[in-house]
């Protein structure tokens, strides 16, 4: 069996003296899209930060592509593209300059044609490519950042509330994009409030509660992929 892009078992993370993540287990296969749902403070973002190595874990194991994040956070970050919730770009740089800069920072520069294709792929209007980010709407920033994450071509992608603030059409486009990613074999872990969006795209949905996965649903091969009523009531009971 190949090493999973993300493997988490019995993860424990504390912030200060508070135990935020408490025995969370989760494993992603290549190409799998996993949506992590949960109320505020349930531990969603903390889990992402633990994967990125921003926070130390107090227990359990956590590997990305078989690499333990505690042992080698850089090797992990090389395999992870991360899209923060509030995408912030350098306002004084254009979309292209931002993407170029961050790609160089990440150590994987891309050609101009690749970047163009990336922008096209996320549906960023061509007129905006060489426009300064200061004038961008939230959706345009999001698209720029997603293009950036895609251009990284990592086996694992972490998305923090990727569709918050996007209009329904843009959110729909985004979900189509995710499916493409999945087909390319990229494993995606996204933290979201957007139940419908998750149900539309995810292969599995996990409900996080008190720092662990309380319930989990797997998409059925037939439509509807999830039982929306079950999701709703599960989500409601978690609050």
């Amino acid at each position: 069996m190949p090493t999973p892009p993300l493997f988490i078992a019995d993860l424990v993370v504390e912030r200060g003296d508070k135990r935020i993540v408490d025995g969370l287990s989760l494993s992603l296969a290549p190409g799998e899209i996993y949506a992590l749902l949960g109320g505020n403070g349930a531990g969603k973002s903390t889990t992402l930060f633990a994967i990125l190595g921003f926070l130390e874990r107090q227990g359990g194991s956590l590997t990305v592509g078989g690499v333990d994040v505690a042992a080698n956070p850089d090797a992990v970050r090389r395999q992870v593209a991360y899209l923060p919730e509030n995408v912030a770009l350098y306002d004084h740089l254009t979309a292209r300059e931002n993407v170029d800069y961050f790609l160089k920072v990440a150590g994987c520069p891309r050609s101009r044609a690749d970047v163009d294709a990336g922008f096209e792929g996320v549906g960023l209007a061509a007129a905006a490519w060489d426009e300064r980010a200061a004038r961008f709407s939230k959706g345009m920033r999001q698209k720029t950042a997603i293009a950036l994450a895609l251009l990284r071509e990592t086996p694992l992608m972490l998305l923090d509330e990727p569709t918050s603030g996007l209009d329904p059409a843009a959110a729909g486009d985004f979900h189509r994009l995710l499916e493409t990613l999945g087909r390319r074999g990229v494993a995606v872990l996204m933290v979201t409030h957007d139940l419908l969006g998750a149900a539309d795209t995810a292969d599995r949905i996990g409900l996080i509660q008190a720092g662990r996965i309380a319930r989990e649903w797997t998409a059925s091969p037939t439509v509807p992929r999830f039982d929306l009523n079950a999701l709703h009531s599960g989500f409601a009971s978690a609050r």
Partner: protein
Amino acid sequence: MSDLKREAWLLGRSRAALAALLLLFLCAGAGVALGLATVSRDRAAIDRMLAGQPAEESALAAFVDDAGYGAYYGFQPTWNPPSDLAFAALGNRDIAPTMLRIRALALEGQIYENEAANPELALPGRFDLAFVVVYLAPLVLIALLHDLWSGEREAGRLYALQATPAARRHIWGPRIVVRAGGVLAVLLVPFAVGAAITGTSPLRALAFAGIIVLACLFWTAVALLVARRGNSSAVNAASLAALWFALTLVAPAAAGLAINAGVTVPDGAALARENREDVHAGWDRPRDATMQRFLALYPQHAPGSALPPTFHWKWYFAFQHLGDLHVASASKAYRDGIARRADLARAAGWLLPPAGLSQAMARLARTDVAAQLAYQQRIRAYHTRLREFYYDYLFSEKPFGPADLATVPRFDPAGGM
């Protein structure tokens, strides 16, 4: 390397950062230019003094028929030429004279003379490269580094950047190097130009550049220590500015105040007056006693020491010198007091890096208080040679004419102590 290029590019895209670096570059350039202009003016003044000396001597030659006249009227130039680094750290060359013409009379009445200078120009301090390094460069470093992390956090980019592999090595390290290096470059380029124009010895130029690097490293370290603490950009900027302000403005001034209060320097005016009293009382003292005291110091002149009943220059110059000896210990206490203050200030420099670095630059450029005291010591040594040259003529009654003026010992600025 590509990381550095990338960060340099990013820095270049920030208009405020570029403006700060450009301003610093202009200031460093102006500091070097003013320093070079001041040094060349100093050199020109010295050259004018040396060029004018023959005219003075030929005027003297027209009536000199006695060694006593030569000794009394013959002013000789002494000077403290600017070193090859003086342009970068002008130090105290504006408040302590760098040229002085002296004669064989009592030296204590001559050595404290001041150069003509407008004190209002000395009051705010010199505008030279050392000032730019000690005062302005830290402010630019603070401006460029205070929000290194907090700025990204406040803009929401911090996690995106931290999530990239080896952020420390690939982002923060290069970013710090580029920013501190930019400051260093705009300081070192004008310095290198100035050093090349002056023809500074490479080793000394390198040492001076080393002090500039140290100054930048110190403030970079301070800025990073504060920036890492996780406060907001505004708090970081305020803390760093307060630190700069305390270390560069308040503490050195307070230390100077404490040192001056703690080490009293004897009243120079009283010293000069006491010298005058003793010299002029010499006219009325028994002449034999004066000569005996003088001959105890210069026994070799005993054979020619007999005095005529009327005025004779050997007696006159004997009591001039005895007047200097009369206040020798007070004069030494005066110098020692100043030297002690300078020593304490150097010690304070270890605790106050801006003051320490500034003093190190002036020391290397030989424009500090110690250099001024050393110049005075060279004047004293030369004065002794000058006196003794004339004693030989006066006590041997060897004739002295215009031709002998050419053999008067000359001051050697390099030492000759």
